[in-house]
């Protein structure tokens, strides 16, 4: 199986419990994978976290979501993942039955900022942990998938190593591979690189984009780092101060073949950064 030639087709095994291709076009665009419509959520009646929040995720894109600290970014991810039930509005998947739930299969996975590798499992076992719940996959198919992912992430030599022996960057890569292993349509990244030092973080950005593109996975990246949001995103959505709603969404005019190190010095990058920082700083002042 050749990942680079036809990644998703190559990685799917017959009978995989993986959602099929998106069917009917969504309301916003023909290629929308996930739609969040007018979602509201409050932890307590006096503490609304999300208000009339709407956004859509296109197939194969990276949507960066950025907002003031504590505005409700992680709550948004929890609502999308089905970990909290919205008080109003809906999260739905164009092509699937509305409100069918995001946890019915490996349609969506998440990578947290905090370490989620199981420390008693090796890298290889961690990468394959989500595949154990795909009942239609046999042991050989799981092993093949893990093998390909390890190769893709450059972790083949570390396959038998326990997480405690990995560097921060390698842990993040292993966690990313574990998150994409079940071939989700959508991967949510919740400030996944915040704990890394700057050079490691910028270095891993390119790998993340490569892996997500190869796996044909759409990504929602929640971050508090504007440069990271622009570097990785195809679009950047700016959230308001709490309760969060989408203030604006901006296209990022860089292709998928980005040089992460030189990108930040480009004048287009700097211009976009200034515009977005202007909007973001207004929300930060309101917070």
């Amino acid at each position, binding site marked *: 199986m050749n990942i680079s030639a036809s990644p998703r087709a190559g990685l799917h095994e017959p009978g995989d419990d993986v959602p099929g291709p998106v069917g009917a076009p969504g309301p916003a665009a023909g290629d929308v994978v996930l739609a969040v419509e007018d979602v509201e959520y409050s932890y307590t009646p006096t503490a609304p976290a999300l208000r009339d929040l709407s956004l859509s995720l296109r197939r194969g894109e990276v949507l960066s979501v950025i907002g003031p600290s504590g505005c409700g970014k992680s709550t948004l991810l929890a609502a999308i993942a089905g970990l909290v039930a919205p008080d109003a509005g809906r999260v739905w998947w164009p092509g699937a039955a509305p409100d069918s739930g995001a*946890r019915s299969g490996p349609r969506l996975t998440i990578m947290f900022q905090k*370490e989620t590798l*199981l*420390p*008693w499992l090796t890298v290889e076992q961690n990468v394959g942990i989500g595949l154990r719940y*795909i009942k239609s996959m046999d042991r050989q198919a799981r092993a093949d998938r893990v093998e390909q992912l390890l190769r893709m992430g450059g972790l083949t030599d570390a396959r038998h190593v*326990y997480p405690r022996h990995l560097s921060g960057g390698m842990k993040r890569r292993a966690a990313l591979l574990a*998150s994409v292993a079940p071939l989700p349509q959508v991967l949510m990244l919740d400030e996944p690189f915040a704990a890394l030092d700057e050079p490691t973080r910028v270095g891993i950005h390119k790998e993340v984009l490569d892996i997500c593109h190869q796996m044909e996975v759409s990504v929602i990246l929640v971050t508090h780092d504007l440069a990271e949001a622009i570097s990785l995103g195809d679009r950047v959505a700016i959230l308001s101060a709490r309760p969060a709603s989408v203030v604006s969404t901006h296209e990022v005019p860089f292709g998928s073949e980005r040089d992460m190190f030189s990108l930040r010095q480009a004048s287009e990058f700097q211009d976009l950064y200034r515009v977005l920082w202007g909007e973001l700083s207004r929300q930060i002042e309101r917070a």
Partner: protein
Amino acid sequence: MIPVARHDSSGVRETDGAAEAAIAPTPGADRAAASARRLAVARRRHRIEIHSWQVVIVVVVLAAWEWLPQIPGAKGTAPVLDRFFISSPSAIIRQIWYLAAAAHNVPSIWPALGRTVITSVVGTVAAIIIGGLAGLLLGNYRSLAEIFAPFISALNAVPRIALIPVIVLIAGSSSVADAVTGFTVVFFLVFFSAFEGSRGVAYEMTEMMRIFGASRTGIMFRVRLPYAGAWVFVNLPNIISHGLVGVVTAELFSGGSGMGNLLVTAVDTADSTLTFGLVFYLALVGLILILGAGLLRDRLLSWWDEAGGASRSS
């Protein structure tokens, strides 16, 4: 090869060859090997220094114990300098041999020791299994924990030794009563270790597994159980010593045929030499069990991050 760096108990940083080569100013096999040799020599020297001090301390204590009571007038100064109460190392060593060989009209220690050890192991293992599972369950199901919280707190507040008469009344003067006492002493130690380990699992880990499709029970066995087990195993030396203490205390009360009964005999006959001989064997057994538990723990917890616990390994 993944660079691996760790600290041994001496605080000396040790690295494998690949890691050493990676941190050397000018990478090369010879330089890495020389550096590894230097580290090995430094570690050996450090160990010798530590062991030397330990030997010196033992020799000084034993010499003081042997000869201080022989100083004229010392006996009347304090009971701790009276051989009637503290015996002497030379007499105790002879007694240890007599107990092992059943010589000089001293009864053989092995039947009593065997009974006490087996009873301790049975009580402790039962407590580890039952207490561990209870801690795991209540750590996984929050509502269960809320229901049982007051009962557990109340039971934990009861001094377990005070239950011995009740246990002896129910189970009779038997190994069962002694094992049950060991069980009650150890149970809550294990329970709270497993409970904390189970509850301490990072929220993100359980949510990730839920998103992958794991059920709550699946998360309990696949994620919480290893953490609960790790916490129990980390406390294993403590758990074993408490189990032994519980059983010997029960034997003191119940009059069974274990080490506790021999200790009662020694005290009744005011035989301090026999008492110290029995204490030596109990300490030896405790030490062997604890060392064995430590080896088992190290083998099972090779993944554990000593720096801050596995759940905080990020």
